[in-house]
């Protein structure tokens, strides 16, 4: 994988994925010079809990993106609760309060599809544990545009529905456990 370089990583997770995120995000190397963008299904009223929690444990900066903010490498962005998070063509963020997609807002599909339009083959997509299939279409879309698809091994996921859905929707490049995902990403640090 070292021969190919990537500009961004999108990660989607739902129930049970907190455990995986807790392993992955704090393990990321300070030298990682790509943006990591996360949609985690969380209660609409949970504020910036995730940002604080992961931020205190991580070497990389962890932030909630601001609307129209330019996407910076080496930053972990967590979608704000109750908003969809989208990537614009000029590599900035946009938020939306459009209806939930797959009963979810933020929706993983919405992030993945807009990110794939922008980053095309420079994008890595990762689907973690979850009890619904949000993200399956998004991962396939990302794959169709030349991106790299990774799915958490359903056996290591608390909820297997989401990784299994992604595996059957897209031809996935790697099936890894959370530690494997972290070391895979760290290999991209140059």
């Amino acid at each position, binding site marked *: 994988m070292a021969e190919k370089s990537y500009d961004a990583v999108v990660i989607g997770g739902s129930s049970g994925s907190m455990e995986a995120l807790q392993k992955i995000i704090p393990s990321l190397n300070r030298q990682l010079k790509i943006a990591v963008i996360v949609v985690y299904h969380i209660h609409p009223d949970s504020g910036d809990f995730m940002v604080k929690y992961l931020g205190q444990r991580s070497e990389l900066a962890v932030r909630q993106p*601001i*609307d*129209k*903010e330019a996407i910076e490498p080496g930053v972990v962005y967590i979608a*704000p609760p109750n*908003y969809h998070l*989208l*990537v*614009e*063509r000029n590599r*900035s963020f*946009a*938020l*939306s*309060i*459009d*209806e939930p997609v797959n009963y979810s807002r933020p929706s993983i599909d*919405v992030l993945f*599809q*807009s990110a794939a*339009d*922008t980053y*095309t083959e420079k994008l890595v997509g990762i689907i973690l544990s979850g009890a619904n299939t949000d993200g399956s279409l998004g991962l396939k879309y990302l794959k169709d545009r030349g991106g790299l698809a990774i799915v958490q091994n359903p056996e290591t996921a608390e909820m297997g529905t989401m990784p299994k859905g992604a595996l059957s929707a897209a031809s996935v490049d790697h099936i890894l456990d959370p530690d494997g995902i972290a070391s895979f990403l760290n290999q991209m640090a140059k």
Partner: protein
Amino acid sequence: MSVDNQQIEIDLLLQAIYIKYGYDFRDYAGASIKRRILKRLSSSGLGSVSEMQHRLLNDSYFFKQLLLDLSINVTEMYRDPSFYQTFREHVIPNLKTLSHVKLWHAGCATGEEVYSLAIMFQEEDLNEKTQVYATDINETVLRKAKEGIFPEDKIINSEQNYKKAKGSKQLSDYYFKKYSHVTMRNSLKKNVLFADHNLATDESFGEMNVILCRNVLIYFNQKLQDRVIGIFNESLVEGGYLCLGTKETISFTSYGNQFKEIDKEVKIYQKI
């Protein structure tokens, strides 16, 4: 950055809409616009965005449907209760000192926020001296806003948020239930003028004490955000308040230094 054919088709579609019908969506945030267009495309049975373009140029009814998809219609009563609570604590006392209040809901969609604020103004005894302008680009949603009839299932959540926003009564004191809908009381819209206004193409209108435009700017690109904040700046009196959505900011526009931040969390600004 390579541009795929579909993106070219979308850009041309928006251009066609502007030339033919005068609605300018060209500076809306692209990723959401694309989702909306593709959603209509898949339900229309047409084969491509170009076919949609052909259809809407020749079929104004089809355009009206698409217009409904493209305009920002998502809203709810008392979304972000902390905003209403802060407004009550920091803005209302100031408005009470005025002899007359002019308030503009820009991009009011189906009007849920218009009624949310009207309820607060009634509870604070401000309704009698307040003139409200509620504007949107879409006549269909404006008509809905004016009717003030909302599906009952959305009200349950609003009832909880009304409480969190420190409403002094029950939300149900302000509407009648009928079948599966609720109708807002007429007294709430007595001072409200519903009117057509397009933030992308129309100009300022004046002497406002408060402008509410929540979760509309997120659908615009930076250029259009700049235009719109400029209009608001022009329309507000000195010391007037600008209320945006909690995840919106004026810091990426040229007007950042024309306002002071009253509340960082809920994005209430005051014109200097």
